[in-house]
């Protein structure tokens, strides 16, 4: 197990270098001078453009730029944005909010999704099953910006139960509605995934054996059936956490949450390569670690799965 984890961690290095290089090259390869639009319709003086290009090593060839950037990154320096703010400060401000939001979304989707999945799988075809099917279909069909906006207007502007936007240092309570919006899509997928997996395992030999041995139905479902059925669900939840960390752009925009999603979005718009690469690097690490965690969880769920 220890060797397995070590090997996985070593794999991080090439993935890390590869992704950061691709991102770095892509961001700076966007046509047009990133500083050309900074001075409004007047255009920027040549001296300004030159000074900025020098500051961000843009006058060097791309591989040299990248090595310089990587060297800086390895010493823990994420660089500065075009308006003179440390990227590390931006990340420090944005990460806790996004982490809170993603965690709330994850808890909501896991709890509600798995519960709905179990319920429909055990009851079999009937009213509840149809209701959940229709509800999940609805959730999958409605885009996040619609559901987010509707909740914002109804709960925030009309009923005044919540604030239409989230403050700068939000408490958990403020993030619950945005969290539900963010998790709603995955919630539907988890419900369906759980339901299908449970259905499959319902007729499996080991379940019949367990029932034949005379185990209590609760134990059959809770320990034997659920544990096996959760493997695909856990895989999904693991990668979804990574997606939630980086992909909350729409939700964060609707509720004015100053998280990672909006940070990356704005940075891409202003061609601010330093911020984009810095944040994406962190996202890559989150993805890799979540995948590792998921793989390790497999063993706990199904002891037949072994490493090395």
């Amino acid at each position: 197990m220890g060797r397995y984890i070590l090997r996985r961690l070593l794999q991080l290095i090439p993935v890390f270098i590869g992704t950061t290089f691709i991102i770095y090259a892509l961001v700076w390869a966007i046509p047009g001078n990133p500083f050309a639009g900074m001075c409004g319709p007047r255009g920027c003086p040549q001296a300004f453009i030159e000074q900025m290009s020098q500051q961000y090593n843009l006058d060097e060839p791309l591989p040299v730029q990248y090595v310089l950037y990587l060297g800086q990154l390895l010493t823990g320096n994420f660089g500065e944005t075009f308006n003179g703010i440390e990227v590390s400060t931006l990340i420090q401000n944005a990460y806790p909010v996004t982490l809170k939001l993603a965690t709330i979304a994850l808890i909501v989707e896991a709890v509600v999704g798995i519960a709905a999945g179990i319920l429909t799988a055990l009851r079999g075809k009937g009213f509840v099953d149809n209701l959940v099917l229709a509800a999940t279909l609805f959730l999958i069909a409605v885009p996040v910006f619609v559901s987010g906006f509707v909740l914002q207007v109804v709960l925030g502007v009309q009923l005044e139960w919540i604030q239409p936007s989230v403050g700068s240092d939000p408490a958990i309570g403020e993030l619950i509605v945005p969290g539900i919006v963010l998790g709603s899509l995955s919630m539907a997928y988890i419900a369906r995934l759980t339901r299908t997996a449970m259905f499959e395992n319902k007729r499996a030999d080991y379940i019949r054996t367990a029932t034949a041995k005379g185990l209590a139905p609760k134990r059959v479902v809770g320990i034997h059936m659920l544990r096996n059925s959760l493997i695909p669900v856990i895989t999904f939840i693991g990668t979804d956490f990574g997606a939630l960390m980086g992909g909350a752009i729409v939700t964060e925009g609707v509720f004015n949450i100053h998280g990672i999603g909006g940070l990356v979005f704005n940075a891409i718009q202003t061609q601010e390569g330093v911020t984009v690469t810095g944040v994406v690097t962190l996202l890559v690490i989150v993805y890799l670690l979540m995948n590792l965690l998921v793989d390790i969880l497999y063993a706990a769920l199904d002891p037949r799965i072994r490493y090395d």
Partner: protein
Amino acid sequence: MRKRRMVAPVAATLAVGLLASACGGGGGGVTEATGTLKDPITVQWGEPQSELVPTNSNDTFGSQVLNPMFTGLIEYTPKSFEARNAMAKSIALSKDKKTYTVEIKQGWKFHNGEEVTADNFVRAWNYGAYAPNGQQNAAMFNRIQGYKEVHPADPDGESGPKKPPKPTAKKMSGLKVVDDHTFTITLQDPFSVFPTKLGYQAFVPLPDTFFTNREKFVDHPVGNGPYKFESRTPSESLTLTRYKDYKGEDAGSVDAVKLLVYNKVLTAYQDLKSGNVDVINTIPTSALANGRWKQELGERAISRERMGITVLNLPMYQEKFKDPNLRKALSLAIDRKKIVKQVFNGEATVADGWSAPGIPGRTDGACGQWCTYNPSKAKELLKKAGGFEGTLTLSYNADGAHKQWMTAVAGSIRDTLGIKVGLNAVPTFSTYQDQMDNNEMVGPFRYGWVADYPTPRTFLKPLYSTGGSANNTGYSSKKFDDLIAQGDQAASVKKANELYGKAEQQLGKDLPSIPLFTQTVKGAKSNRLAEGTLNTRTNPAITTFKVAEPQQ
């Protein structure tokens, strides 16, 4: 912010209590509780593109912070955009019309206690102009004697391969400190409206701490204006508090203002509707349709004239567009009135010239007959120009709200002239600016300009003079250049404006670009504010904010 929801009911109960016990007193407590550092007035804002240094910041979000933080020699009144003395006690012109003697008011201090002296102005301007400092607003100082030495011009233009030579001086010879409160500005050539220009953000004084510790200044800017920097969380918010010892006229009355970064215009709008933010200076397109925002906001809606203009620039470096008949045909084919009515719901003014309609000293109607919709004459002129083969491509940047009206303009030209018209959406403004700089536009392209200072010249010289700093049509007319130069040397501002007007009329003969319309400044304020003016450059004028008396 969460607190405020509670403030209202609590205050209401208090007020009722006071009335019931016949104490009177008017519940002044509410006025004191708002606008303080604990419960600041909140304003919609966005992350500035550049660092918060007056000579190196050019975007509206930057000036939204820098304007209340710094006071220059001259300031522009937020309501009428007229120039008046601020830190300047007097600005006297010499007989040769080239040297100004500036006397500044005494006793003014920077927020850190340093006294503002003539030296603070001279050092700041020299810093801004010096090429190796790479300041965005360097060109603002180009009229001052010695600018060429500190900021040599690129010998083959910006896009050429050659690099400009090294500066031969560090300071402009035209700036001289006489004593602590007097300095002189000598210009290369006479420039009649120069003092008017001094209210622009780049001309403010900088404290000594800026030069000794620039990095610290960028994190915590120190100005001499009515509001001082309190704190900032990058990409979230910035708080300004009132500088109690401010000596100027526009001192402001609200103690603390918090600028909140909004990534979506719609969110700010929803927040305003539910009293979560106090001033917004944009209205989402979805709320503009059928004037819905005015119905929803009622008295809270703000709409006023803007000191800016939208034009359709013509790439005169392309062979096709060298024919004035074609340019005129295109202008005559655009039904501006219909577009203003249908696309903007009447929230815009049809352009009749190249400068903004409300600018002081303007000559009206410079565009004359060429800016009125006239289908038959348009067709006639197109014929004269030998028709138009292929597709006329109109360009705009897709990251601004231009698609709708550009589509309408394209439609109007297509329907009137019966030629093929296509739209080219350039993804970002940055790429768009790059294409304009490098003369890469294939057809007409949209352009917007906002006044830097209150004279019609600000709309003419940079855009249409030969080699002007924002001339991207490639237009060059000796007559126009001469008229501007004569205006610059005129004896009075009035005379100068007349000559600038003549220059504008010259544009009416040549039509290097097609004037379209001026959009209005649109925004809104919450009920917490009795007054919350937006200035003519769409920025909330913080010093005009007044907290509303509680309603009984």
